[in-house]
């Protein structure tokens, strides 16, 4: 357990000291969301209608920008070899990395999403659905992205590639995340959609690190 926290706290320290990387992902999220009213026109009703899709799609795209660095740097500087020799299963290494990724990109987006939703005139009843959906959905994105990041270690154009292979896998998150917000805005129950997200998260927590660990093992050879 100590080694798990060691990896996570090191990644958090690295993220803190290379603060610019972290700020870029979050700024991308903000800038792209703001582009929509500019492209669509400032009609509040129209903005409120597309707000769930805009927030979720932009969050997914912003997350994609951050995945290629997840293992690439460790692979280039030899750190991945050392992690593989720590005696900790690579799946646990991947889980620690995914958790650190979520804390540095998922968490800031959970905080920012409601603020951005205000600028999009999101319906007042929908905020809880947005926040709860992000709380359940962003860890899934981090976990899936960790698998993608492990797969593209050493690939050419790894950044685009990781988006190409991870985005289709995140479609269920997008669907249930936006449906929950829509349901709340229409006064319907959001419970079932959030339960779906929770179920996917519960399945992804053990399965995604396993797949990422297998991918990392292949990358070492």
């Amino acid at each position: 357990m100590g080694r798990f926290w060691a990896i996570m706290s090191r990644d958090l320290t690295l993220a803190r000291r290379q603060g610019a990387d972290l700020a870029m992902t979050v700024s991308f999220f903000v800038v792209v969301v703001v582009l929509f009213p500019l492209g669509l026109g400032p009609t509040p009703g129209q903005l409120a209608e597309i707000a769930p899709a805009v927030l979720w799609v932009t969050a997914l795209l912003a997350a994609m920008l951050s995945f290629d660095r997840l293992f690439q740097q460790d692979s280039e500087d030899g750190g991945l070899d050392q992690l593989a020799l720590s005696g900790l299963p690579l799946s646990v290494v991947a889980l620690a990395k995914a958790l650190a990724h979520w804390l540095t990109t998922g968490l800031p987006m959970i905080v920012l999403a409601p603020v951005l939703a205000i600028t999009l005139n999101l319906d007042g009843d929908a905020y809880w659905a947005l926040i709860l959906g992000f709380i359940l959905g962003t860890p899934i994105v981090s976990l899936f992205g960790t698998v993608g990041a492990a797969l593209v270690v050493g690939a050419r154009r790894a950044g685009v590639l990781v988006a190409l292979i991870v985005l289709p896998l995140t479609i269920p998150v997008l669907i249930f995340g936006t449906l929950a917000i829509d349901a709340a805005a229409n006064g319907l129950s959001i419970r079932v959609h959030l339960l779906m997200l929770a179920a996917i998260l519960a399945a992804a927590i053990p399965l995604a690190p396993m797949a990422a660990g297998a991918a990392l093992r292949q990358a070492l050879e």
Partner: protein
Amino acid sequence: MERCFESDPFAGDQLAVVRGGRPVFAGLSFSVVPGAALRLAGPNGSGKSSLIRVMAGLLRPTSGVLRWGEEPVHQDPDGHARRLAFLGHADGLKPTLSAGENTAFQLRMRGMDRSTRTEAMQRAFATLNITSLLDLPAGWLSSGQKRRAALAAVLASDAALWLLDEPTVGLDTASVTALEGAIANHLASGGMVVAATHTALDLGARVTDLDPATFARRTATLSELGSGWGVS
């Protein structure tokens, strides 16, 4: 370094590695006993790095087994990883962490507790004359200083087997001498060292030379190649 390793000999039997469709070496066997060293020599592309990675368990050999004493290594890869310290081509240092933080992280990943960690680290940094670099970000160091910081993690580890891939790259004469001293110490306390190196590096009196290139498999005939899967 008043340690004493009571380890079994480390040996490889009939190892073969295929990389990118090309057999790097085949039928390679070696053995290292406690207190002895193995020097991997040979030209570029002869398979020194591949062999060291096989020894570390990072690369799965196409055929053959590694043994620690009598026990095949692949039965307990995590246990094997704990017995060895590996230094690859790259230094494995994060530029924004200080040299000390980098080493401390690696020692922490080995499961060493805080006080042992600090003590071992200070001793290793002193041995390599880089105590003054402890608190500097690794990104600020010169390539020779980085190499020494990476070596410090090996020296400070509690591993019986050191696997060093080109450890002297970028080192000046004084640092090479310091490294030789550390290696001699390690061997004297019953440790084992495997080093791939081009340069003259004194690995003590009980050193065996091994050139993977002499095990290069060039025996495949054209007809064998033309009827295989194209991978082995």
